C-alpha cells in the first residue's frame, strides 16, 4: 500500500493545476452543499429542536385569578401528576400575568399594551427562556423584554419604560421564548404590584401530538375547576404552524437552489475526475509495466484524485459552516434566534462522507477503463495518432465562411462529447440559476411593492392614543386637515379593531376602511373591492384558514353587537388573521368608533418628510410615519438568492475553466503545431474561448426555459406555503425580449470561465510542448 500511496501523492503533486482545480471546485461545491443542507434543515425542523431544547410548553393557559386561586391550581396539578398514568409530564407556574401600557421610548420597543409575566428565573421544568443578553430581573423596577437575538435590540438594555399609571421599569435583559409565553418578564413581586388579573400555567403533556390530545389533556386538567376559570389557552401546534409558515415560504426556493448546487457539484466533480483519468492514461500504463496490479493502479488513481478532493471537501465544509451562519440569520431574520438556527452535525457528516464518495464514484468509471487497458495500450495513449472524433462537424466547419480560429473552436466540443455534455450541463444549470434568480428577484420585488403598497400609500398618520398626546381635532377635522395639505391625492381612514366571528373561537383583526380605500393598492385575486355596507375583502391565507370563499357570509361580533357581511373579494395577502371591512359595517357595530390611522398618497415628487412635519405642526396629536418601501422577507430572499446565484455561477464557470484546462493539457501538441504554422496568440485565445462559448450559447438556450420552469414551480410552492393564491403578475414576470436577453448569460459564463486558461494556452511555449511530445 505504501507504493500506491507514494505514487498517488507524487501524481497529485505533478498535476498541481488539475489537483488545485479539483480541490477548488470540490471546495466551492461543498460550500454550496453545506449551506444548502443547513438551510434545508433550518427550513424543515428547527422548531422541534428548539422546542425540545427549551422544554417548550405544549399549552400556555390563562386562568382568571378572580375565579381560581394559585393554591387551587397547584393542587390540581399535584392530583394529575400523582395518577398511575399521569397525562402531565411537567408544569411551570402559577405565574402572575398583567397587561401594562408603555409609552413610546423611541427605541426598538413599540408603545402600547405589553403582556408581562412574573417569573423568578428563566429556567424551570417548562419554557426555559433563552436569556440572550443582560440578566434576569432580580428586583422590582427591572424588566426583561422578549426580543429575537438580534444585535440591533441590544440598544434596549438599560433603557427605562414608563408603564401607564404604574412603575418605571429598567430593561435589564433580553430573552426569547419559543412558546411565546410573554412579551416581557418581571419579578413575581413586581407583577403583584401591577394587579395581575390572570394566572399563567405552562404544561407539558405526555401525549401532545394533535389538537385532540391537547384538548383532552386540558379537559382533564381543568375538570375540577369552575367552568369560567380557564380564560384562554394557546397550543404549541398553533405557534409551530405560525413559525413554519415563515420558514416554509423559504423552503421551496432553498430546496431548489440546494438541488441545483448538488447537481452542479456532481457534474463538475465527474468532469474533473474523468478528465484527469483520461489525461493520466499513459501514467497508468507505466505503473502497470512496473508491476502494479490493475487494482493497485485503480487504488493509486482514486487516491490521487481523492487527495485534492478530500482537501477541498474539508476546507469547503469549514467555510460552508462559517458561511451558513450569517446566511441563516439573514434568511430567518427575526425568528432565527427564537427557533435556534445552525447547521446540524448530520449535515457535516453527510457532506464529509458524501462529497468524497461522489469523487470516488465519478473516478471509478474512467478508472475502470484504465483498469481494462493493457500496459502497452495505455502507454501508447497520446503518442500514436488517435482516431479523430467529431469528424463530420470538423469537415463541415472547415468549409464554413468563418475565421479558422472560430471554426476550429466550434468543432472542439465534438472531439470530447462526454466532457462537453458534462460542461454543457453545468452551464445549463448556471444559466437556469441566473434565470431563476432574476425571476425570484422580480417576483419578490413585485410582492414587496404590493405588500408595502409602494406608490399607493406614502405615509400613515396614526391618531394619538390615550397614553400619547391626543388630537384636538375630531375625525372629520383630521380628514379635512389632511386633505387640505398641498400635494395630497388620496386619504383612507382605517380603524383597526379586534372582533369575533360568530361561531368561531378566537379573535381576528378587522381593518374598517373609509374614504379612498380602493386606491390603497390592494391586489385582488378574486371577486371585487369593497363598495358598500356589509362587505368584506379577505386575504387568501384567511380564507384558506377558515375554509371560506368569495360569496360566503360572515357574522361579525364586536362586544354584544353583531352584523352580517359578505365576502366580496379575495386579496393577495399572507395574513390569516385579518379582514378588510367597509366603514358602514363598523357603524352598524359601533357608531362611536373612530379611525385609528389615516393612509395618505401624495402627488408624484412630493417630499413625504416635509408633509409629515407639516401635519405634526398642524396637529400635534397626530403621529405620521413614512411607509417603508422595503419588504424584509423579500430582501432576505433576494439576498440569499443572489449569494446562491453567485456561488453556483462561479462553480459553473470553474467547470468551464476546468474543461479548458483539460483540453489545453490534452491538446498541448496540437496547440503547439497550430502556433508553429502561424496561429497568433489572439487566434489561440479566440479558438479556445469559442469552443466554450458555443457550449455557453447552447446552455443559454436550454437553461433559460429550465430556469423559467423552476421559477414557476418554486414561486407556486412558496405562495402556497404562505397561503396565497398566485396572481399572474407574480408568475409572469418576464417579457419575451427579457428572456432573450438572458440567453447570452451562458455565453458570458463560458467566456469568463474559459478566458484565463485560453490566454495561458496562447502563451504556451511551442518548443516545450513539441519537445514533451
Amino acid at each position, binding site marked *: 500500500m505504501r507504493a500506491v500511496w507514494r505514487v498517488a501523492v507524487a501524481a497529485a503533486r505533478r498535476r498541481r493545476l488539475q489537483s488545485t482545480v479539483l480541490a477548488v471546485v470540490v471546495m466551492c461545491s461543498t460550500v454550496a452543499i453545506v449551506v444548502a443542507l443547513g438551510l434545508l434543515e433550518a427550513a424543515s425542523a428547527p422548531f422541534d429542536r428548539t422546542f425540545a431544547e427549551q422544554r417548550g410548553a405544549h399549552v400556555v393557559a390563562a386562568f382568571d385569578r378572580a375565579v381560581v386561586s394559585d393554591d387551587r391550581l397547584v393542587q390540581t396539578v399535584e392530583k394529575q401528576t400523582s395518577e398511575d398514568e399521569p397525562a402531565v409530564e411537567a408544569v411551570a407556574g402559577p405565574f402572575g400575568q398583567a397587561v401594562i401600557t408603555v409609552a413610546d421610548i423611541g427605541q426598538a420597543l413599540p408603545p402600547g399594551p405589553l403582556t408581562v409575566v412574573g417569573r423568578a428565573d428563566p429556567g424551570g421544568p417548562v419554557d426555559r427562556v433563552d436569556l440572550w443578553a443582560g440578566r434576569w430581573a432580580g428586583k422590582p423596577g427591572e424588566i426583561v423584554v422578549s426580543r429575537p437575538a438580534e444585535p440591533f435590540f441590544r440598544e434596549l438594555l438599560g433603557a427605562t419604560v414608563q408603564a401607564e399609571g404604574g412603575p418605571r421599569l429598567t430593561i435589564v435583559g433580553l430573552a426569547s421564548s419559543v412558546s411565546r409565553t410573554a412579551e416581557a418578564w418581571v419579578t413575581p413581586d413586581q407583577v403583584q404590584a401591577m394587579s395581575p388579573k390572570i394566572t399563567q400555567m405552562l404544561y407539558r403533556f405526555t401525549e401532545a401530538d394533535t389538537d385532540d390530545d391537547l384538548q383532552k389533556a386540558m379537559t382533564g386538567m381543568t375538570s375540577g375547576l369552575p367552568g369560567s376559570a380557564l380564560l384562554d389557552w394557546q397550543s404549541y401546534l398553533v405557534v409551530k404552524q405560525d413559525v413554519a409558515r415563515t420558514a416554509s415560504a423559504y423552503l421551496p426556493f432553498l430546496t431548489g437552489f440546494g438541488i441545483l448546487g448538488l447537481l452542479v457539484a456532481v457534474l463538475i466533480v465527474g468532469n474533473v475526475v474523468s478528465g484527469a483519468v483520461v489525461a493520466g492514461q499513459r501514467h497508468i500504463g507505466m505503473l502497470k509495466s512496473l508491476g502494479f496490479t490493475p487494482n493497485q493502479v485503480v487504488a493509486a488513481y482514486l487516491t490521487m484524485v481523492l487527495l485534492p478532493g478530500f482537501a477541498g471537501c474539508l476546507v469547503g465544509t469549514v467555510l460552508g459552516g462559517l458561511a451558513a451562519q450569517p446566511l441563516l440569520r439573514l434568511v430567518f431574520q427575526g425568528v432565527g434566534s427564537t427557533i435556534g438556527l445552525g447547521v446540524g452535525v448530520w449535515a457535516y457528516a453527510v457532506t464529509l462522507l458524501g462529497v468524497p464518495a461522489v469523487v470516488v464514484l465519478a473516478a471509478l468509471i474512467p478508472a475502470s477503463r484504465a483498469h481494462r487497458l493493457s500496459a502497452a495500450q495505455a502507454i501508447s495513449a497520446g503518442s*500514436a*495518432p*488517435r*482516431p*479523430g*472524433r*467529431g*469528424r463530420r462537424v*470538423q*469537415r463541415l466547419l*472547415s*468549409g*464554413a*465562411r468563418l*475565421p*479558422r*480560429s472560430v471554426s476550429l473552436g466550434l*468543432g472542439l466540443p465534438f*472531439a470530447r462529447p462526454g466532457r462537453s455534455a458534462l460542461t454543457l450541463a453545468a452551464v445549463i444549470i448556471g444559466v437556469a440559476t441566473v434565470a431563476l434568480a432574476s425571476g425570484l428577484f422580480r417576483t419578490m420585488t413585485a410582492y414587496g411593492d404590493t405588500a408595502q403598497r409602494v406608490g399607493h400609500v406614502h405615509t400613515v398618520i396614526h391618531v394619538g392614543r390615550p397614553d400619547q398626546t391626543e388630537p384636538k381635532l375630531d375625525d372629520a377635522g383630521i380628514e379635512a386637515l389632511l386633505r387640505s395639505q398641498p400635494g395630497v391625492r388620496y386619504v383612507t381612514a382605517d380603524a383597526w379593531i379586534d372582533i369575533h366571528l360568530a361561531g368561531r373561537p378566537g379573535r381576528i383583526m378587522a381593518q374598517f376602511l373609509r374614504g379612498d380605500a380602493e386606491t390603497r393598492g390592494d391586489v385582488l385575486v378574486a371577486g371585487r373591492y369593497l363598495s358598500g355596507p356589509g362587505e368584506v375583502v379577505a386575504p387568501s391565507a384567511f380564507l384558506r384558514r377558515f375554509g371560506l370563499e368569495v360569496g360566503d357570509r360572515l357574522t361579525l361580533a364586536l362586544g354584544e353587537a353583531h352584523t352580517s357581511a359578505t365576502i366580496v373579494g379575495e386579496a393577495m395577502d399572507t395574513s390569516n388573521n385579518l379582514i378588510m371591512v367597509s366603514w358602514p359595517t363598523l357603524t352598524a357595530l359601533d357608531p362611536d368608533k373612530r379611525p385609528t390611522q389615516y393612509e395618505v398618497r401624495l402627488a408624484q415628487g412630493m417630499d413625504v418628510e416635509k408633509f409629515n412635519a407639516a401635519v405634526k405642526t398642524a396637529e400635534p396629536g397626530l403621529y405620521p410615519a413614512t411607509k417603508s418601501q422595503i419588504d424584509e422577507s423579500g430582501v432576505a430572499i433576494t439576498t440569499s438568492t443572489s449569494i446562491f446565484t453567485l456561488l453556483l455561477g462561479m462553480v459553473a464557470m470553474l467547470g468551464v475553466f476546468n474543461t479548458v484546462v483539460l483540453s489545453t493539457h490534452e491538446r498541448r*501538441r*496540437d496547440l*503547439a*503545431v*497550430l*502556433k*508553429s*504554422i*502561424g*496561429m*497568433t*496568440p*489572439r*487566434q489561440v485565445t479566440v479558438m479556445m474561448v469559442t469552443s466554450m462559448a458555443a457550449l455557453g450559447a447552447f446552455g443559454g438556450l436550454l437553461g433559460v426555459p429550465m430556469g423559467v420552469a423552476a421559477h414557476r414551480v418554486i414561486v407556486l410552492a412558496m405562495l402556497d406555503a404562505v397561503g396565497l393564491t398566485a396572481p399572474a403578475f407574480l408568475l409572469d414576470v418576464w417579457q419575451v425580449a427579457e428572456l432573450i436577453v438572458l440567453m447570452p448569460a451562458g455565453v458570458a459564463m463560458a467566456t469568463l470561465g474559459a478566458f484565463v486558461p485560453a490566454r495561458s494556452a496562447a*502563451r504556451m*511555449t*511551442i*518548443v516545450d510542448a*513539441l519537445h514533451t*511530445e
Partner: protein
Amino acid sequence: MTTEGEVVVRLERLRKHYGETVALDDVSLEIRAGEAVAVMGPSGCGKSTLLNMIAGLDRPTSGSVTVHGEELSTLSETRLALFRRHRIGMVFQFFNLIDDLSALDNVALAAQLTGTSAAHARRRALDLLDELGIADRADLYPAVLSGGERQRVAVARALMNRPAVLLADEPTGALDSHTGEQVMDLLLDLHQLGQTLLLVTHDERLAQRCASRVIAIEDGRVTGERAMEQSA
C-alpha cells in the same frame, strides 16, 4: 519574394543557454535563397535548437537571427506568429498533424489562418497533395495514413503559404528506409524547383541527396562547413 543568391537567413554570434547548459555558442552563418543546407551533428549538439531559432519558435539568449530581412528577437509573439505563417514552412520528425482533421484540412489550415477563403485554401491544398502524389488520400485522417503519407501531408502543409525557407527537422527520422527515400526525393525535387531548404539531420545519405552545403555542429558550436556534390 526572394531572388537567387540573396541572403535569406543570417545568424550572428548566436548564443542559447538553458540554465547552465549551453545549447548554441557563438554561431554565425548565412543561408542564401535557393540553397539547400544540411545541419549535421550528434544527438544533443544543438541542431534542433538552431532550427527553432530560425523558425522563431524559441528566442536566443544573445546574438541575432535575421530571416528574410526581419530581426526575430525584436518581434512580439503575434508578429513572430505572422512571420512563421508567411515566411517559414516546418516539417517535423513526427509529422505533427492534427488528428481530428483530414489530410486536406490539415494542409488547408495553414492558408485559412491567413484569412484565405476555405474554398480557395482547399483548392490549393488539393493541388499540393496532387503534386506530392497523395491527392487520393486527401479525405483520410492521419490515423489511417502511412508514415510516408503523413510526412507528405506535413510537407504540403509547410509549402501551403509559399515559405521563404522550408525547415525540416529529421524529416526521415521516423520513417522506414523505403519511405525515407521517397521523402528525400520529394525534398530534392523542391530544392530543384528553387525552394530554400534547411535540413537538420544526422542521416548522411539525406544530406548527400538533398543538400548543397553541410554545416557541422558539435557542442553548440559550428565546427565545419563543406559544399556537397548532390547525387541524383
